[in-house]
């Protein structure tokens, strides 16, 4: 079964600073990888995903993630963060169990932006 490890439970950064949220997954022949964002008291929203093709994927709000097969990583980056980026971020990997598909989530990383 697939598993995901988010290496940092909390990441505090100053506004306009760069940030990297780390994610490692267990090795597999092929994987689909996702980043979700959860703003306070809200549901989860898809930020970006890697299915195939280019290893660098981007979101509409300036985040990007790079699929690195050799390091089994899918780290999320943003060159300059805003206060509005304060949220919980979840990395997820697709898994197939008993013929059924599901997403397995990491423990989450709380990103806090300080002015």
């Amino acid at each position: 079964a697939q598993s995901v490890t988010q290496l940092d439970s909390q990441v505090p950064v100053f506004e306009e600073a760069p940030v990297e949220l780390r994610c490692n997954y267990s090795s597999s022949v092929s994987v689909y990888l996702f980043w979700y964002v959860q703003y306070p008291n809200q549901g989860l929203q898809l930020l970006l995903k890697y299915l195939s093709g280019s290893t660098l994927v981007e979101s509409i709000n300036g985040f990007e993630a790079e699929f690195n097969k050799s390091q089994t990583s899918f780290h999320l980056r943003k060159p300059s963060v805003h206060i509005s980026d304060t949220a919980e971020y979840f990395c997820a990997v697709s898994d197939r169990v008993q013929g059924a598909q599901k997403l397995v989530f990491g423990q989450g990383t709380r990103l806090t932006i300080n002015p």
Partner: protein
Amino acid sequence: DTAVSQTPKYLVTQMGNDKSIKCEQNLGHDTMYWYKQDSKKFLKIMFSYNNKELIINETVPNRFSPKSPDKAHLNLHINSLELGDSAVYFCASSHIWRGGIHGYTFGSGTRLTVV
């Protein structure tokens, strides 16, 4: 229009009661899920239905019973509520394409508090 809607958004109830949470999606997806998010924000799958058929049941106590009257609806009934059932419950839906999941769409969650 809301893609995945859950009701109620908040639910406060006493131990021992029976309660239900409803979920509906209008995306035409064929698979629906229930996830539990605990106080540490960890997301764990509970159930998955594909076209009204139960395909994932992750060692959840049998006090929890999902019901899917059609592929657009997945309800969760909980009997004899316990304090440890307090959590946020998320409904999600997805479409299986070429044997894989390309992401979930989540509902906004139901915050269940058992007192």
